[in-house]
């Protein structure tokens, strides 16, 4: 690590509030009506992350596999709850679908990274497992929430098409396949586009943070590459597991589309 890395002080952070002040000015000028939300968001992000900094310091002192597994379990539970809360339409058993999708992808991807890529000793070292696990779960949450919303939109849009296929003898899986395909493509394309332009257009957050913290850019780049591959795999795997569970909820055991779930419940 370089000795001349930049330490951000509390005073520096207060100065960075000028960005928020400037955004507030613009929001007010355009009468977007977002002032209150932005102020709350600013304070919440400050408080939550500051608190998390202290909590993480404590977490990093804990060296036990059961603690690490328990923590990941709680993180996945919270993410599943948050993902369920974000859905505009009722999806039966969505919490369980989210939990299984996030748990499955976290175990597989985090396990691979800790055991075979970074070869962390011991594997439950909080310095690696917490930030990487958090990234996997957070990315999985965002991706699956968007995909589930998009999937419902596709089902609504394709309702007649799906019933036509069912009427011709298709299984629910085949009848819903195009809707699943469109929603998963919509989730993965931004990830692929990000991989195409990374380094050319923008420097990703993790890499920027590491460079600012004094890490050799070549090493920071390697981490970033691993993280991008990890993100893509998380999005692919979590979405596929989630959709494989969710699509079934929209059909009865008599291979009928549950049209009542596609009506706006507002």
């Amino acid at each position, binding site marked *: 690590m370089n000795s001349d890395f930049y330490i951000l002080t509390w005073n520096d952070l207060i100065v960075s509030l000028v960005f928020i002040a400037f955004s507030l000015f613009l929001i007010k000028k355009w009468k977007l009506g977002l002032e209150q939300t932005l102020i709350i968001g600013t304070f919440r992000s400050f408080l939550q992350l500051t608190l998390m900094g202290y909590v993480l310091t404590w977490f990093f002192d804990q060296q036990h596999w059961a603690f690490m597994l328990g923590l990941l379990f709680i993180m996945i539970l919270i993410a599943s709850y948050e993902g369920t809360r974000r859905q505009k339409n009722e999806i039966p058993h969505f919490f369980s679908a989210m939990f299984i999708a996030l748990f499955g992808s976290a175990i597989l991807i985090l396990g691979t990274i800790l055991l075979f890529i970074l070869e962390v000793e011991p594997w439950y070292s909080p310095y690696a497992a917490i930030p990487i696990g958090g990234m996997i779960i957070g990315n999985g949450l965002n991706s699956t929430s968007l995909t589930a919303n998009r999937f419902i939109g596709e089902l609504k849009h394709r309702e*007649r*098409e799906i*019933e*036509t*296929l*069912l*009427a*011709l*003898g*298709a*299984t629910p899986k*085949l009848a819903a396949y195009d809707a699943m395909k469109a929603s998963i493509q919509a989730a993965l394309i931004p990830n692929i586009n990000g991989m195409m332009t990374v380094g050319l257009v923008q420097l990703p957050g993790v890499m920027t943070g590491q460079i600012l913290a004094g890490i050799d850019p070549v090493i920071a780049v390697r981490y970033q590459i691993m993280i991008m591959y990890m993100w893509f795999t998380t999005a692919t795997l979590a979405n596929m597991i989630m959709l494989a569970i969710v699509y079934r909820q929209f059909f*009865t055991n*008599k*291979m*009928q*589309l549950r049209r*009542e779930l596609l009506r706006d419940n507002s």
Partner: protein
Amino acid sequence: MQNEPIFKFTDVSYVVGGSKILQGINFVVHKGEFLAVLGASGAGKSTLLRMFNALQSPNSGQINFRGQAIDTDIPCLRKNVGILFQNSVVFSGKVKDNLLAAGRWDQNIAQTLDHELISALEQVELGNIELSHNAQDLSGGEQQRLALARTLLNHPQVLLLDEPTSNLDPKLARSIMDLVNKLRETLHLTVIAVSHDHLLMRRYAQRVMVLSQGQKIGEGTFKALDQKQVFEEAGLMEDSD
């Protein structure tokens, strides 16, 4: 053969959110017949039609298809009982892609040769349309015929029609119904059509069942129901042109 029952509905009811869509419906459909189910808007006829190929199930009551409970083998039921919707879905792609839609899960259809597909188009009087034609460029009437050809490739025994001509002009509607009737005779199909248009249906159907507010208020020949003024009771005479 004509009197062999193919469908039997016993005390079929469907209630959703407290509203009674269908109440205690009993009737039998015979093999090879053309049955019209008539009713005004909201009478429950489309819900009833969807029950024939198990796209909808009743809350109570029993439906039998060829002597067995209708949900015994649903993929087999749906292959045998085709439906032509009010606004048929034509998938994006070519006419051929539409005809082979069921080829995704049915190897017999996937292996259909081009000349067989052309015969299927000729069967629905679309012989002038190329297999490579963009399906969504077809007119409304042609799209209905394409959907019919797609359904017929499953070799169904029963054809369900859900107001199949309501979006077409009267001349086109009659030509589609003439075609369906001709197919019924040549392919020995049983046809069940729901409609609010009793004038159109009396040209083709041998028997009629009339629904009003979810209840069966009459069943028999048009002549018999005319005498009982069932069509007036169902509010169908106001819809007549």
